[in-house]
Every structure is written in structure tokens, then in C-alpha cells.
């Protein structure tokens, strides 16, 4: 226990360290049992409900590391583009099986004995939005870690050897839907698994990636239910609802993959469980009664306390996803040391799925038209730009 605490402290004072969490220490650390809400906090869905969580308690949360002192500074993520791209269309074989107890978060494994974590867990529901994903390394080694976009590439998460299967290591991670990229560190070497999908990142490094989709529509429904409910009862829950709606808005606006450098800040740590919501036939008063609406937004603004003086109430000029056209961000010379598209292979940020299969066009210059469209090709995205003359 004391051991663990000092460990904590060291970390909190030294946040920028790339900390290495070793499962072999799990035994020592397993006694704490103080990890609360490990899983829930990673859920972007629980943004929908902060009934008991005043804004002050919000914090930057990674997907796996709940403790404030463990937070990597996402602003410093170097080249680690993360992906909010929710993809409900393709079912991934890696989609977490929901039968698994969600207690098996990294920390649960590292810091709790099975019994304790079980007890801890029974009081909590599996958090919707994060999906347990088993990551396996089966190519040998003594010490195996995984690092990836889900930790901002700054943390290494230890994998535990699988009994009776030499050279096989695994870990169960709680990851939100979307695409995650990662590599393994096997005996201090960066490797990728031959058994998982691979891609190259912006720098041309070979990485594994998984695309996590929601296992059931149930989660989605639940989320919608929450959102609705949050909007439905602004009066009954004057504190909770505004925050949730606001967060939702923020999520949508900022949910562009392009600015995901500090994207994880959007995953506010949820401390309490959300109650169960239901659909309703009634149009919420906030949409029908202007005075309720005004009240609602005023509350919202006070809650935000962000001194924007309601400026955010002005409707956006464009639908939010159009404000970030990835082609507009493309600058072949922007990446230092990566001059020219041949070196970065024309890599682009991962597009938001809502922009797929849309036709974008440039203005016609010199009788030449350029149209572009982002399409899926298998599990990657091709932004094809076609130049053609006007006939």
C-alpha cells in the first residue's frame, strides 16, 4: 500500500515521464483497491451524464489511465494522431465481446487482486462506449508492452504472459470505438504484430491498428436515450442536463480527427454511473418554449464560466465537420524533415466518417476543375483528387 502511494506520488510529480507499468509489479500493487471508476471515465458516452460530476471534476482523461497523475500531456503528442472516427458500419473481429467483464481494465489487472476487482466491479455497470479489447502478442520475447494512439504514444502498458502458451502475451484494454494504432515493445524493441492489421503512419512507420465498432446497437441506443433524456429534463436536472448537452455539442464540434492532437481531453472522466433513460414521445420543452430555452442556455453559459458571453450560441457558419477539410490541412512541406509527398506518401489525417463519399470541389482555375472524394478502400481511406479540363 505505502509502496503504491509513493509510486503514485512519484508519478504525479513527474507527469512527463514516460512511465512504464510493469505487470510483474501487479502483485505489489494489487492491494490498493482504490481505483474507482477506472472504466467509466474513459467513456465518451458518459459525457451524457454528469449529474453528480460538477465541471470542476472533469479532467483530461486518457482511455486507460484514470488517475490525474498519470495523465500524459496530450498536447505533446508527437505525430500521434488519434482517431475519433466512430465506425458502426463494419463489424470488426476485434470488437470486444461484451460478455467479458469490463473490470479487466489495465489498472484492474495491475493494481487489484482478482477478488477485489470483482467486488469493485460488481457495483458498476460496464461502461458503454468503451469496449474491452484483447490485445495479444504471440511472437515471443520476455517483456512485452504495448503503446499506441490510445495512450498518446507516451505510455507503455505491460502485457501479461499467457499461462501454458510460451511466447504469448495478452492484455485486455478498454477502448472507445474508433481506430487505434499501436505497436509493441518487445524486450526494448519496437515491433508490430504479424497477426494484426497493419498500416503505416504519417512517418511511414509500420503500426498495427484496430478499428473498434460498437458491438451492439444497444450502446448507441442507450447513448441516444441519454442525450435525449438530458435534453428532455432540463428543469428537473438543471445542472446535469446543460453540461451534458454542452459536452455533446463540444464533442461534435471538436470531434474532428484532425485536431486529435489533444483530442483525449474530450473524454471527461465520469465518476458516477448514469441512470437509465428512456425514449419519450414528448417534445422537450427546451425546444418548444423560448423561455425554457433561454433559461437552459443561460444556465449552460454560467456552468461553462468560460467568459465567452454566449458567443458560442451563434450557430456555426458551416456544419462542424466541414470546418475541417483534411485536404485543406494537407501541406507537403509542413512536416519538418518530410519535404514532399513522396516521403510522407501523401499521408493524411484520418477522415471523419461523415465526410466519406462526398464530392468536394475546388474553384475552377485556368479551365481546370479539381474534384475530390474520400472513399474507403478496404480498411483505409483514399482521398482521390481528379483533375479534369472543362470540356
Amino acid at each position, binding site marked *: 500500500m505505502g509502496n503504491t502511494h509513493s509510486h503514485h506520488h512519484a508519478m504525479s510529480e513527474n507527469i512527463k515521464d514516460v512511465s512504464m507499468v510493469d505487470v510483474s509489479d501487479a502483485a505489489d500493487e494489487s492491494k490498493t483497491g482504490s481505483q474507482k471508476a477506472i472504466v467509466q471515465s474513459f467513456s465518451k458516452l458518459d459525457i451524457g451524464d454528469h449529474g453528480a460530476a460538477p465541471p470542476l471534476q472533469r479532467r483530461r482523461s486518457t482511455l486507460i489511465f484514470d488517475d490525474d497523475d498519470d495523465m500524459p500531456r496530450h498536447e505533446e503528442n508527437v505525430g500521434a494522431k488519434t482517431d475519433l472516427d466512430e465506425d458502426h458500419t463494419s463489424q470488426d473481429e476485434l470488437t470486444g465481446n461484451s460478455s467479458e467483464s469490463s473490470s479487466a481494465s489495465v489498472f484492474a489487472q495491475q493494481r487489484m487482486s482478482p477478488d477485489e476487482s470483482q467486488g469493485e466491479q460488481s457495483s458498476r455497470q460496464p461502461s458503454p462506449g468503451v469496449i474491452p479489447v484483447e490485445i495479444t502478442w504471440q511472437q515471443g520475447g520476455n517483456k512485452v508492452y504495448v503503446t499506441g494512439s490510445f495512450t498518446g504514444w507516451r505510455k507503455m502498458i505491460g502485457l501479461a504472459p499467457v499461462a501454458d502458451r510460451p511466447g504469448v502475451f495478452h492484455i485486455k484494454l478498454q477502448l472507445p470505438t474508433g*481506430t487505434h494504432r499501436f505497436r509493441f515493445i518487445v524486450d526494448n524493441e519496437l515491433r508490430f504484430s504479424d497477426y494484426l492489421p497493419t498500416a503505416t503512419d504519417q512517418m*511511414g512507420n509500420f503500426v498495427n491498428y484496430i478499428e473498434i465498432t460498437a458491438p451492439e446497437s444497444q450502446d448507441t441506443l442507450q447513448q441516444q436515450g441519454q442525450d435525449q433524456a438530458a435534453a428532455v429534463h432540463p428543469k428537473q436536472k438543471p445542472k446535469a442536463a446543460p453540461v451534458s448537452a454542452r459536452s455533446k455539442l463540444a464533442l461534435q464540434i471538436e470531434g474532428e480527427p484532425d485536431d486529435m492532437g489533444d483530442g483525449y481531453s474530450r473524454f471527461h472522466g465520469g465518476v458516477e454511473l448514469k441512470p437509465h433513460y428512456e425514449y419519450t414521445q414528448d417534445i422537450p420543452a427546451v425546444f418548444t418554449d423560448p423561455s425554457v430555452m433561454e433559461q437552459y442556455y443561460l444556465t449552460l453559459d454560467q456552468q461553462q464560466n468560460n467568459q465567452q458571453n454566449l458567443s458560442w450560441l451563434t450557430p456555426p457558419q458551416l456544419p462542424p465537420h466541414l470546418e475541417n477539410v483534411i485536404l485543406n490541412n494537407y501541406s507537403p512541406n509542413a512536416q519538418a524533415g518530410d*519535404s514532399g509527398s513522396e516521403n510522407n506518401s501523401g499521408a493524411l489525417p484520418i477522415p471523419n466518417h461523415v465526410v466519406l463519399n462526398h464530392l468536394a470541389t475546388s474553384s475552377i482555375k485556368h479551365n481546370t476543375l479539381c474534384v475530390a472524394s474520400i472513399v474507403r478502400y478496404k480498411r*483505409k481511406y*483514399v482521398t482521390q*483528387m481528379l483533375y479534369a479540363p472543362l470540356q
Partner: protein
Amino acid sequence: MSTANSETISIEQKLAVQSIRRFLESKTSYDVLPVSYRLIVMDTSLLVKKSLNILLQNNIVSAPLWDSHTSRFAGLLTSSDFINVIQYYFSNPDKFELVDKLQLDGLKDIERAIGVRPLDQGSIHPFKPLYEACCKMIESRSRRIPLIDQDEETHREIVVSVLTQYRILKFVALNCRETRYLKRPIGELNIITQGNLLSCRMHTPVIDVIQLLTQGGVSSVPIIDEHGRLVNVYEAVDVLGLIKGGIYNDLSLSVGEALMRRSDDFEGVYTCTKNDKLVTIMDTIRKSRVHRFFVVDEEGLLIGVLTLSDILKYILFEEN
């Protein structure tokens, strides 16, 4: 002691090359692609001079072509197409009008007119092993290969991307840890092109250098001084900058003057010696956009060139 050492190094190198080859066999062209990337395609009815501007604007040196009449992939536009046009115009100065109005689908006529055999580019499906893509490139002596698939519904061709030798070697350098065992001096490996090396001087007319590029079927001509020391290089892609502004009016320039058109982000000329090792070469490929290494001796005299296809051939076919 030293013989035992060099023997170990030889064995290690052999095993490493075999391992890299297995890597190329186990991965596909698709694996090399980033998760999200852009691909610039040009319609074949586009004017050649416009296509040049588009290449330069986008900072690329080649692009796949699309025939909208047949809905088919129509080959790659590369710097050699522009070289052909330059040569055609140089020997037919009265045909300015034709050159000025030339469309991309007219490039074949130019090839015919100057008697150049059209390059057989070939193409490959993205899910074929990378090894196969490499072999195809070596066979067709091309530096890039288009990845072509079929649309699942319409069964029409789709251009997925274009792979270059550089990208594949960079991919190997990034992802194969085995490269660090490639410690034999390249002079021992018999992979350097030596002797009969084409070269030019700073005052050589640029049109002669362009001639050399096509004659030798090479992507660059080294520029040497009167002592045979390497001073610079003229690359096939430099012609894009040469004909950028006014069209084809500067063919009387010397190659030295032509080089002044080069953009500021030119990577520079990479050299190595016979004692350098492939591990260093691969490391350089990983870090920089390099397309060939000129081999020089201690005095800077040019003695050979190591191209990316030389390296690729070695990895694909040697050390069995």
C-alpha cells in the same frame, strides 16, 4: 580473428537478407499504404502543360492517368513523358502549336514520333505480396508501380495508389530490424554500377543531358569537374522545373544554369564509399528522400552509382 569476424558478418548479412525477403513476401502493397492518404489523378484530356503545373503545385513527380471515356486507368504520367515532349520539340521547333495544345492522351503520339518504346508500366493488385510488386518493377525497369483493383459493384478498375521503389525500401528500412545486420561493405557485394558511367560537366547543354537521360535509361546524370570529381547531379525530375515557366524556351541553357531552377528544398546529392555498409544506406533511406547514392573514392572522384533498384535487386535475388 578478423577472418572469423568477417565470416560471422557474412552469415549474419545472408540471414538478414533472407529475413527481409520473407518480410516482403509476407506483406502486401496494401500494407505499405498509410491509413489515410491522398491520390492525385489526372484526366487524359488535360493539357500536358497544365498537368505539369498540377504536379508542381502538389509537389509530386508523377500521377496516374484516367481515361474518362473508357473509365479505365490509362498509365502513369512521369518525368519521362516531359522529357519526350522536350526532345520532340527540340527536333521539331516548328511544332510549337502542337506542343502547346498537346493533351495527355497525345503523349503516345509523341513517343511514336521520336521513336521511344513506350514503357511497359505494368500494374499489380494491392493484395499481392510486396515481393511480387518489387519483381515486377525490376522486370519492367520502372521505378513505380500502380496498384489497381476492381470496384466490387461495377467491376471497373480503380487506381488505389502508386508504389515507388523508394517507398518500398523506406518501408523496409522502417520496419525490418534485420537491416542492422547488413554490415558487409557494399564494395564486396557486387551491386554497384561501375564503369561506362554517363556523366556531364557543368557547361554541358542541358538538352544534351536530357538526351543522356533517355539514352541511358537512367533517372539522373552526375555532373563532374575536370578531374572527375562529383560536383552535382541532374535528375530526370529536374526537367519539371526547367519547363515550368515559359514552355520549352530554355533548352539552350547549360546544365549548370538549369540547376538554378531547382527548388530550395532539394535534398542534395548523396554519396557513399565502397566501404559503406547497407545498414548505413538503409538508414539514410529511412531518414531522407534519396533516390541513389553516388560512390566516390577518398578524393571525391566518381567511381560508380548505387541505385535503389540495385539495392532492391540485391534484397530480392541475392544471398540465397
